[in-house]
């Protein structure tokens, strides 16, 4: 099997496993745990971009992903403050 095909299959694996982990993982009732679990499918998505040779999409996704994490952490902290 080709290296590219292997990368693609690894991406599929991480994507599906990560999705199941996000939905029914351990202790996902805490929003922060759920946010950390989301990193696994996004890594799978990055591997798929890599296998399809989409450089620009990969670089933009990495940049956007970090900003989105910032926004989500802010929302979680603020929500926790308001609910407490």
């Amino acid at each position, binding site marked *: 099997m080709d290296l590219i095909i292997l990368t693609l299959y690894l991406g*599929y694996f991480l994507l599906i496993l990560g999705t199941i982990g996000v939905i029914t993982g351990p202790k996902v009732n805490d929003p922060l745990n759920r946010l950390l679990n*989301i990193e696994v499918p996004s890594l799978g998505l990055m591997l798929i971009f890599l296998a399809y040779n989409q450089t620009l999409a990969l670089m933009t996704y990495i*940049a956007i992903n970090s900003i*989105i994490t*910032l*926004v989500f952490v802010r929302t979680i902290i603020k929500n926790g403050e*308001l609910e407490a």
Partner: protein
Amino acid sequence: MDIVSYMFGKSIFVGMIVGILSLYAISRQKSDLHTLLLTDLVECAMLVIIAAVGTDLAEALILPGLVVGLAEVLAVSEILIYRNEVRKNNLMSDNKKLRLFEEFLAKEEPYVNTDVNFNKMEVIYSAPKFIGFILVLYGAFLTGFTGGAVMASGLLFYLLSQGAIGNGVSFNDIKHSWEAISGFSGIMWAFWILLGFAGFFLFPEHYLFFLVITGCALALKVGSKLGLIGSLRI
């Protein structure tokens, strides 16, 4: 048989599985915050399905999708917080102003036991400028959507660090710079669409010139738009 057409069906299948699973989870979810987090997963499924096409056009479609997704998440989270705040204020009638990215700013100087004066450390003042400058330069070199995003992260980092150091900027300054940056972004949008694209179709023999104009204007537009987030914090 090349890889794109060989793997097309499998990629679509995986994207569908992820999309259906996450949409089912959203339908079972009670909390709004969890729904917002799961929306990010649906975006992953969408991107896989677009990426499965594997052409340059598909790649070009992914980029605006990512930027729009970011704006969407920002807006929806803001609305969520605002609604919770209004609900709490109705219960307790406690008026407290909220600012964007307030959590990442130092509210008060931490108490330190030793006599080290942290305000005297030169690296705190010079390093953010340098890193921001490098990021903006690199973004200008990349051009396009990616360059704009890199440039914006440089601006964002610089402004957030200025807020953390505690360099006071007056309210009028913020208002003026806000107006200036948004006006600049609008002008760059006009450059991108009107001059760049229209010239591209009207004078195809000078295509390189208009391509450079479009790329640079797009980079400056995205950079200034996302940089606005940074100037909200003060």
